[in-house]
């Protein structure tokens, strides 16, 4: 008796769903890709041994990093020591430390007006102010929001979405929306006038402009950091709170004794990310205020952009020198935060 070969079980075509077809389609792509990689990787592995294969896997990323990050960075450092307005490095005269000298040419570093490149120093001081208040405000608000959203309140999912929604918007869209709200004939002024109050031209007053720039960036970004902190909060074992509760600890004591120490690594990540992002502030503010009124909201990245690209005489060397200085400041900040992180891990 001959047995019929076993047929694979297949659904009739009319019962195969679109999802299944799509899944199969993407699986075919994936399998094809793996086949191609296999055809290259298998002989290579036989040739170089499995131990050395790691270098080959790292190589593509290293090439991308080298071409798009390391090479421009080195080029930028080279440009910082050149002058003129030519774009290509071979056409640019070497001027030594002249660009750095121009930036640091100050009689009093605390008074930008006494500096030759006063706009760089104004940008730098504005950036320091922005970082302190934007990061400080954002971390505090994100923390508060995360703690609240971690509790079992009604509509928790809805509020999580609401706080995260601005993160999905482009910085330019955010700036335009708020510009329409805050301008002379904007929504907020219409509301103020309706309530019988005086119209305020927010972007013509330095204090108001700085306030709104910080407020809007906190509004736009805090959802992202709230989400990270929320994940950190949810990883804290609940029985620790129960134990503290049984020991008679108040909520504040639980927060200080359990939540804060266990959340510290997450908090540090949030701090590092938000500081780096705050120092790089540019696009949103550029659209919102253009750096005005005067130079009240000019930040150091805008100074670099304007010096290199927006001015009629493009001083790439000076802009590169400024960006090298900014890079060094960021490096010191990051090293400091990493050191803090290590100390917190040890503790």
């Amino acid at each position, binding site marked *: 008796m001959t047995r019929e070969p076993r047929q694979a079980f297949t659904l009739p075509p009319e019962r195969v769903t679109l999802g299944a077809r799509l899944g199969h389609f993407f699986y075919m792509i994936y399998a*094809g890709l793996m086949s191609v990689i296999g055809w290259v990787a298998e002989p290579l592995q036989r040739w170089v041994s499995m131990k050395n294969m790691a270098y080959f896997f790292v190589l593509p990323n290293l090439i991308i990093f080298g071409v798009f990050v390391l090479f421009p960075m080195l080029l930028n450092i080279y440009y910082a020591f050149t002058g003129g307005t030519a774009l290509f490095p071979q056409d640019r005269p070497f001027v030594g430390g002249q660009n750095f000298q*121009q930036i640091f040419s100050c009689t009093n570093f605390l008074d930008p*007006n006494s500096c030759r490149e006063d706009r760089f120093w104004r940008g730098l001081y504005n950036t320091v102010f922005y970082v302190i208040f934007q990061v400080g405000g954002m971390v505090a608000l994100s923390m508060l929001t995360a703690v609240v959203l971690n509790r079992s309140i009604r509509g928790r999912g809805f509020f999580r979405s609401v706080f995260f929604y601005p993160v999905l918007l482009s910085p330019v869209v955010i700036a335009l929306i708020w510009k329409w709200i805050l301008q002379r004939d904007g929504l907020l002024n219409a509301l103020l006038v309706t309530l019988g109050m005086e119209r305020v031209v927010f972007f013509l007053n330095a204090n108001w402009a700085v306030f709104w720039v910080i407020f809007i960036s906190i509004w736009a970004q805090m959802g992202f950091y709230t989400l990270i902190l929320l994940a950190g909060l949810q990883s804290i074992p609940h029985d620790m709170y129960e134990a503290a509760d049984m020991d008679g600890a108040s909520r504040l004591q639980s927060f200080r004794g359990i939540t804060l120490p266990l959340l510290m690594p997450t908090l540090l990540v949030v701090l590092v990310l938000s500081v780096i992002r705050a120092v790089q502030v540019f696009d949103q503010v550029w659209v919102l205020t253009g750096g*005005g009124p005067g130079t009240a909201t000019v930040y150091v990245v*805008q100074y670099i952009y304007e010096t290199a690209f927006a001015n009629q005489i*493009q001083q790439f060397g000076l802009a590169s020198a400024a960006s090298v200085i900014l890079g060094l400041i960021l490096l010191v900040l990051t090293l400091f935060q990493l050191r803090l992180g290590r100390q917190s891990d040890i503790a």
Partner: protein
Amino acid sequence: MHRFRYAALTTMLLIFAILLAACTTVPAAPAESDADAVATEAPAAAAPAGAVTELRITWYDDGSEGAVLRDLLDRFEADNPDIRVIIDTVPYSSGILETLPLQLEAGEGPDMARVTQLGGLSKYMLDLRPYLSNPAYWDENFGPFLAWMQTEADGNAIPGFMTQLTVTGPFINRTLFEQAGVAVPSDASDQVTWQEWVAAAREVAAATDTFALAMDRSGHRLAGPAVSMGATYFDADGNPALVGDQGFKDMAQLMIDWHADGTMIPEVWIGSAGSYQAANEPFVNGQLAMYMSGSWQIGQFNTNIADAFDWEAVPNPCGPGGCTGMPGGAALVAINTTKHPEAVARVMEYLTSEAIMNEFYARTLFIPGHLGLAAKGIEFQAELPQTLKSLQVFSSEVGKLAPLAYDLQAYKYNTILFNATRDRLTQVFTGELTLDEAIQKMQEDIDAGIAAAQQ
């Protein structure tokens, strides 16, 4: 298993092929409407694809001139099927002032471009003289303006032609003056001072709840009034010298006072840090009694305001130094990296032919930058009396411009000077600098900019 691998690989290759096919260039479809025609591309010529030379123009629009140019070029292409011209329309500030110089420096510029930084970009311009059939025609009709496009003071290159000659000067909203019951000062006198104009405009603003005055945020716009107030801008050697220039300081002080007392709409200068900003919107919206800008606004006012209210240009206000505006304008120039200089020259010769230029100026409502046509007079295609009167006012202003205004316009590094005055003066309005500090900083910025440009 192997069969599956081959099937998967075939699928992959198929997708890759589709992706590659999607990335190939597709010939542009013919434009279906006027609006499409403005967008950029011309209808494909009837000649075989391989024989067509494609030229690109980087262009910006003040009004309807892009559409007029497209129309004229369509006719050129119909007669010259071997050339196809694509117009890339970009914003003036970010496209022409910021991006184009970088493209040119990188050697990635278009074949032609419409620019206003004539001296600053002259090193990227192509001298068309060897390619032109009749260079004498150009010298005769564009001679004085070609001097603005030279890399050397005594150069005789023909890089392009003026698409428009502009003159800076003020517009007024006559309807607001009438509503306020305030007499328009220029109705009674040919020589009205800035102070008299501002006093009248303030009365209008107070009575109609509008703003008295706005000026485009531009050092070029400021220069005309400053020269009228007696500014000299240059020292005896012809180098920019603002420290000690009392006329410039007087004009700067007036600007400070007008911002401090609310005469000027603050959004334009104070609210727009670091860049050029026009104030045409509040004027079009009827929120301004007086607007210091220039002749290039006529075309768009003719369209956007039309007869919604009575608007008109008035003669430049006076000061101790005269009653002058600033000359200027935009030129369509050939770029020296073009691979098709002969084709570019053919397009240029077509566009500068007297009949085509006449049509271009008549339809765009631009003051002609062609001496022959200027002498004959242009019959502008406009019906509004406001438009016709404004054109007449600006045309007569050309003859009143001070020699220093022409010198400033011809100065190779004038954009460095104009930008420094614009940005530093704004810092005085916001209280960041005193006027003396600002003038000192302007001079330092100008000196550093020129030194960098010459390095």
